[in-house]
């Protein structure tokens, strides 16, 4: 353990004494980060996410055409759809509308990551609010909130998202909100149970003895110490959010133009041409799976890094 610690900063302590090094304590998060850096699984996940993020941000520079553009409209006929390498200027071929598959995949990365990140942020914010109220206040507030969460949890996640999207109308914003709201119960429950498990801890007792107000204890002591599992869940949820977003737009809840660049929607329209142009299904499908893989690898390494049971080995 001591080998990966940064050298102790000055002071009178013997710099090579491992006991003193750990005594000074790398914080939980710093320690977790150091452990992540050594985990090949985490590196692979981070590289995948980094690449997709880069592609998403640089989409306007990287994509040869716009997301909705149909540059190859004249090159497709009802019976032929040029595949990868079959037509100049379109390295991954065309789709049934005459859109450039490469451009659509690139713009699709932007759409998917945006939906994934925004919806998870929404679910995290809503879930944390409910979780802090329930775990911090306890009593009847806790009871009411948890019953509400139970009700939401009794509806399968995707159906809940679909029902919300049905109210909001068909658009990518509706998908973001729908997926975000459907994640709220999970975060709320997780944060609450994590806070409850910390409530009996000695440092909370110490804070109470010092006469700190309940709000200070909850917000500055209980909450930061309960965030570990929530952060892990958020990373893993990014993977499900990307998959769920694709599922909702696959079902046709995305709205907008039919040729809009979304991975899920590309799969919807690949259905009819599966026999003649399987790449139209496989390319966006692989993009969804790889993005989800990246977030999953990162989330699981983070879980390992933060888990006290696997620490200090």
């Amino acid at each position: 353990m001591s080998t990966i610690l940064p050298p102790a900063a000055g002071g009178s302590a013997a710099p090579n004494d491992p006991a003193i090094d750990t005594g000074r304590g790398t914080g939980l998060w710093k320690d977790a980060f150091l452990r992540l850096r050594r985990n090949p699984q985490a590196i692979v996940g981070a590289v995948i996410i980094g690449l997709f993020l880069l592609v998403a941000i640089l989409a306007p520079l990287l994509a040869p055409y716009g997301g909705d553009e149909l540059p190859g409209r004249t090159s497709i006929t009802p019976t032929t759809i040029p595949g990868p390498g079959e037509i100049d200027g379109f390295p991954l071929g065309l789709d049934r509308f005459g859109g450039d598959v490469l451009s659509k995949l690139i713009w699709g990365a932007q759409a998917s990551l945006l939906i994934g990140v925004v919806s998870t942020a929404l679910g995290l914010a809503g879930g944390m609010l409910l979780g802090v109220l329930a775990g911090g206040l306890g009593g009847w507030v806790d009871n009411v909130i948890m019953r509400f969460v139970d009700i939401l949890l009794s509806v399968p996640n995707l159906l809940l998202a679909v029902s919300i999207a049905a109210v909001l109308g068909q658009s990518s914003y509706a998908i973001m909100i729908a997926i975000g709201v459907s994640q709220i119960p999970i975060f709320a429950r997780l944060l609450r149970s994590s806070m409850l498990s910390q409530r009996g801890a000695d440092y909370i007792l110490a804070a109470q003895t010092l006469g700190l107000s309940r709000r200070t204890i909850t917000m500055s002591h209980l909450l930061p110490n309960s965030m570990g599992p929530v952060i892990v869940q958020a990373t893993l949820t990014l993977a499900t959010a990307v998959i769920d977003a694709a599922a909702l737009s696959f079902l046709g809840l995305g709205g907008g133009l039919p040729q809009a660049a979304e991975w899920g929607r590309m799969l919807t329209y690949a259905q009819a041409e599966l026999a003649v142009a399987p790449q139209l299904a496989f390319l966006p499908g692989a993009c969804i799976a790889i993005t989800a893989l990246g977030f999953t690898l990162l989330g699981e390494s983070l879980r390992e890094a933060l888990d006290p049971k696997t620490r200090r080995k």
Partner: protein
Amino acid sequence: MLRVIGKRIALLIPTLFGLSILLFLWVRSLPGGPATALLGEKATPEAIARVNELYGFDRPLLTQYLTYVGRLLQGDFGVSINTGRPVLEEFATRFPATLELTVVALIFAIGVGVPLGYFAARYYGRFLDHSSVVLSLIGITVPVFFLAFILKYIFAIQWGILPPDGRQDARIDATHYTQFYVLDGILTGEYDAAWDAFLHLILPGLALGTIPLAIIVRITRASVLEVQNADYVRTARAKGLMERTIRGSFILRNAMLPVVTTIGLQLGLLISGAVLTETVFAFNGIGRFLRDAIFGLDYPVLQGFIIFIAILYALINLIVDLSYSVIDPRVRVQ
């Protein structure tokens, strides 16, 4: 035992009550309100007013809600907007298809997942273990509808050994009593019909089963890993029990508890997955029906289905809890 069941069912009541309020408010918040959902977006104001009066949508919310709950309690889930038939009747004809599909998916997931997880733990750190970890990662990250595409492309289109869609070959003239096509074929002695229906279940079943499979492999592996180093296993070895007895009665049995819980929790995922899988395979079950309901804003169907699923969910979790006492005698039902 009966008391426990009664108590659990009583606990379900507040949840269902809350759910009915949410569902009621949900319909009232649909764009344009329920009348527009019924008539379509191009409805004239007069038509909307007429429908509002006819269905009582103009009455106070509380009155409307009480009417809604009163009907629910009598088993009246309303009439589907798309088909004009009672919602319960629609479920009764379509649910068997989804149940058949779900059962195949679960058999596949449990039949492959538990042994794979078990052997992965037994040969911890070896090739089988690593491949099980990779496999379950793939199962979690590959979206079910994409997997459905892959299976359909390879087995139905490229190799042509399994049917690409539907529940049964249209040329087969089979008699259906129960709407469980495989069961119907066996009951009536039409074995070719049963076999054909079974072949139609394989690809969607595999696609749908992969999500629970991945999770079952992980949980089984983790659980066996924990149990096989337990003190009582060491004691059993020291006593010189046969390895087979140790593995069967000591390790596997004790490792099953979390696995059973997990299987019970897969229902939500399976139902969501069924909507997507049935869409890809044109499989005429409740999932496809729901998809059409989503697009037609067929709110009585969606409302009814969500309540139906909530009850089913609770019942399955009850069965799971009761099965604990069978697996682990220490967990006696109090």
